[in-house]
């Protein structure tokens, strides 16, 4: 029972971290970055490279973020900027981008499954249950990401501009905010977050060029349900991620794999605003 509870919490936290980058971009740019899964993969390979060079595995997180941000900066100019205002086309073009990125990764690293070194191994005993120490650490990291991000949004000038763009882009531009810059920075941060999330999940799973796709789908559904609020995203990750763990543990892991997708579609049908406010 304790294990299931911990599974629910850590799964929700991982989903939250993975979906955060997607939500940020969706909130400000109003487009869905279907290359999100590929950026996740970029971060995972970043972690792989970090440990392969014998560097401290903890370094893989900042390095992954940087790798994602750099690639993000490049593609924002080339692919994303022409697609503002064409949300369905943006889905397609970023999906194509995902294909291209994962093919580059395949060319560079091969198609086979690889394993990165975990920064923390072993288990911790909580209330009589032993539990993976790394999964528990993800909790702390997720909270740090969440708080850091809240600080960025609430406390920084970029955050203020981003909130202005989310609320009313035309007005923000009229007030002299460089909305192009806000979008570019948001996209870069979103891609960096995706890669960071990739590095974070790497020690829990194997690494391969297409590992991002299942995560992309779940993150996408969560963002659709959450709208553009971090609180609703956290709520959605907890409820739907929790449902996934319960179905996987007590019924079948295969059915668990489609729980989030199915529940999200139904939630949206019944309540188009999802977990957000109307």
């Amino acid at each position, binding site marked *: 029972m304790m294990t299931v509870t911990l599974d629910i919490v850590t799964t929700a936290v991982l989903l939250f971290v993975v979906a955060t980058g997607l939500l940020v971009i969706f909130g400000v740019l109003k487009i869905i970055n279907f290359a999100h899964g590929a950026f996740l993969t970029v971060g995972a390979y970043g972690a792989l490279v970090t440990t392969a060079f014998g560097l401290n595995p903890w370094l893989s997180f900042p390095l992954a973020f940087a790798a994602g941000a750099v690639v993000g900066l490049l593609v924002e100019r080339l692919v994303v900027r022409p697609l503002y205002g064409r949300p369905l086309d943006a889905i*397609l073009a970023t999906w194509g981008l995902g294909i*291209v990125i994962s093919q580059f990764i395949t060319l560079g690293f091969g*198609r086979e499954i690889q394993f990165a070194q975990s920064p923390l191994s072993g288990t911790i005993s909580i209330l009589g249950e032993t539990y993976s120490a790394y999964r528990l650490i993800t909790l702390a990291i997720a909270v740090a990401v969440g708080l850091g991000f809240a600080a960025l949004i609430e406390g920084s000038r970029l955050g203020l501009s981003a909130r202005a763009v989310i609320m009313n882009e035309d007005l923000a531009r009229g007030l002299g905010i460089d909305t192009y810059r806000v979008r570019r920075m948001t996209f870069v941060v979103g891609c960096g977050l995706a890669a960071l999330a990739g590095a974070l999940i790497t020690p829990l799973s194997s690494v391969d060029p297409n590992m991002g796709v299942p995560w992309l789908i779940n993150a996408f559904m969560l963002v659709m349900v959450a709208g553009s609020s971090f609180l609703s995203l956290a709520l959605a990750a907890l409820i739907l991620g929790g449902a996934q763990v319960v179905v996987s543990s007590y019924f079948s892991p295969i059915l668990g794999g489609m729980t989030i997708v199915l529940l999200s579609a139904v939630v949206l049908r019944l309540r188009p605003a999802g977990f957000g406010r109307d």
Partner: protein
Amino acid sequence: MTEESTIASVAPSTPSARAGVERLRRFAAVLGALAILVAAGPFVLDTYLVNTLIRAFHYALVALTVDILWGYAGILTFGQAAFFGIGAYAAALVFTHIGFSPATIALAIALALAAPAFVGLLLGWLSFYPGSTPLYASVVSLAFPIVVTQIIFSGGTFTGSSSGLVGYQVVDFPIEAWFWVAGGGLIVFGALAYVFVKSEMARVLVAIRDNEERCSYLGINTPRVKILLTAALAGIAGLAGFSYANFSAVVAPELTGFVFGTELVIYVALGGRGTLIGPLVGTIGIDVLSSYLSGDLPYVWKLIVGLIFIAVIVALPNGIAPLVEAAWRRLVHTRRATGSERPVGLSSKPVAAVSTATLEIVGVSKSFGSLKVLEGINLTIVDGELVSLVGPNGAGKTTLMRCVSDGRERSSGLVRVNGQDIEIMPPFRIASLGLGRKFQTAGIFESLTVAECLRIACALHDQPSFLRSLEQLALPAAARLVIDATGLAELLSREARFLSHGQKQALELAMVLALEPQIILLDEPTAGLTKAERARIGRVLIDLVAQHRLAVVLVEHDLDFVREISSRVVVLHQGKIVLDGTVADVVGSQIVRNIYLGAGHA
């Protein structure tokens, strides 16, 4: 049919009929040429290519269904692969678990058609409802193949789980015959699709894509159209799946998958959505090239396809086909002669018996939380009245229009249209009660011609054809009055997006009248019009009320215009009716003066 319409349809029909025969001959020639190519294929191509092409033909057929959904109806779907897969699994499951006999073949075919169509109905019901967004429909279409794949994974030995089903007995044709079956099937479906996309019904799909709200206010049950389209195309994709399961003798979960679904979208996007030839050539070309190049250039080929795909989406959203077409036309100097530019004959519908009209609004209120936008509105309007609704911005005029034309809008109160309580009816049902609404910004269908826009507006009383394209437009007299008075009658073949602002307003008015309503709501029909255009619309409105006995409700800011044409004026202020009287009452009213001059309310 009236005398006029008979003359109109007979007189110009000779050249148009000749053109029709010519078109038919060209159509038959193209089909014949394709049939010869397919017939000769197995004798001139090597076995590997023949095999690859058979697969590509199957994929191309499914790609055509994606194209009709996305390119014409505007529904970006990743789900067609799953219908194809369900059809394939239907065959494999029947042959594996029940056996192989003529009876089970018939059963498998029936299942491969009915199961996807039924699932298509469910998926359509989930995706399309009044107020659903295109993004939501795409989300559902993306979730759907994932769910289907997971179900197959969890099916154990029944579905073969991740390794799929193999070794079942199949309808065993020699390879040449498969080529003919798949190629012939593709030609037949392609021809049917060609007829369909030229038909009046396909114009309805484009209209829904361009402006779904306008369609529903013209009495079209748009969710129903989309649900039925999804189900029909699901069945067709399922049949292709049946054939593929027999040809390949193996089915795998990837056939139903989301990745295959996106590949189909990529083929269609590269070839050119909204054309038939583009997706056909795109699918066959990429699939065949892939099968050759992915061996020589592993990974690089997929990388190239990905890069081209991005470039096409970013720079050529309509794909490569329109580009090739334009180049071809420049080369041979032919003018565009698409179906939409053929002349359309115009005729009048017989005038229906003059009926009475009543719009009763009883105690209607509308509030957003604690903010009351409308409060206790009571108003009855009958035929022969032209009621102007005036009041400052934010008085609730447009909100009142919305509460009358959409049953889900008002917070409380009762609205009866021609005696019928509108309850919580969606707009298309209220339209069928005899109420038409014109929007403030002209709601027209940008990519359709004037004639086609008007034809869509007649759809409520005159079911659009699945086979015929628009050649004869029979309009009710009131709509005819508008297009004659505003010169639109000469512009029937012009695409609506090329019209001037005033012409667009007039077109929308004519569309609303083509619905044959007894009551019309007009929201600032003269906004942004020149003085001459305004006077013309004013005369038309007076005519409509006097001759056609319509009940007209008009929201208007221009008080001079109101004074000239109204039989009655209702003044709204802060959500309440403050005055309901004649033009003279309003002109002499101190209250109205105070409202407009901002001296508080007396």
